[in-house]
């Protein structure tokens, strides 16, 4: 059985706090803790800041040529699959005729 260290617990709480996922009671206790410990307050604030920054980063989508390239690769994949199946069938037939 493994036990969480107090550091792990605080880290988890800060992660939830940064995303506004704490319950009212948890939030109140955490506010008190922040009042007592400046380091935790700073950590919690930068957690919120980074979370918001990353959330607002632009989405990087695929280019307009993606679909064309993807369907070409998929066609090759299907072709390869058919070739393998055919080769297997031929092999099986050959075995059947020889036996």
């Amino acid at each position, binding site marked *: 059985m493994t036990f*969480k260290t107090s550091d*792990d617990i605080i*880290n*988890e709480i*800060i*992660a*939830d706090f*940064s995303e506004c996922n704490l319950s009212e009671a948890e939030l109140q206790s955490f506010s008190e803790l922040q009042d007592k410990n400046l380091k935790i307050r700073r*950590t919690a604030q*930068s*957690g919120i*800041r*980074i*979370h*918001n*920054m*990353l*959330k*607002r*980063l*632009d*989405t*990087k*989508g*695929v*280019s307009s040529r*993606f*679909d064309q*390239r*993807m*369907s070409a*690769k*998929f066609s090759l*994949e*299907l072709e390869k699959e058919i070739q393998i199946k055919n080769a297997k069938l031929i092999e099986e037939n050959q075995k059947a005729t020889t036996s």
Partner: protein
Amino acid sequence: MVKPNTALTNSNYELRGIIMEALKIANLRTLSDEDVMEQLQTGVTQAFDIIVQRYKDRLHNFLYRYTHNHQDCEDLVQETFLRVYRSRHSYERIAKLSTWMYTIALNLAKSMYKKKQRMTKISMHADPNDSESREYEIEDSVILQDDQLHQKMSVAKLEKALLKLNDDFREVIVLRDIQQLSYEEIAEITDTAMGTVKSRINRARQQLQELIGDYVKSETF
């Protein structure tokens, strides 16, 4: 007795075929990811295109944080889809399709990243005996007045900082803050306990804060 017009009958059959195909695709579009995957498993190849359309941008956005290069990233996304197709029969409905696909993409990204890192080391330090051979960090000392330019540079700084995080930290923070997946999904994709995921996310945020320092103002975003 009137002879049937064979040309007309053939074109009717073709038309019917096209309509049936269109209906099949329209029907697939209404299905959940997992149902679409089930169709693919039974041999409906059109289901593959539905999966591609649903996930291409999401996977690209995720993998871009590893490659930082659109071309490499698109290659990785395509490879992910091909692997999804090749291993379609090993997918079981107990897992969400998205989780399964992210796991495949993450493994691919990790191996590509390791390969790239090895190649960079070789090219950056061509001659280990040369004391003059060292990495240069170009600092921009120009005072920025244009807000747009500042925002652009802040984004660049944040993205560069993301690349400096270690694998464990980067994967969880990208999945959570950029891809906005749930903790449960991230735990499944990274094969770690949920507590560890949360703890890593918080540590990753702290590291990013340290890396970008005060350069990026919170008001910028």
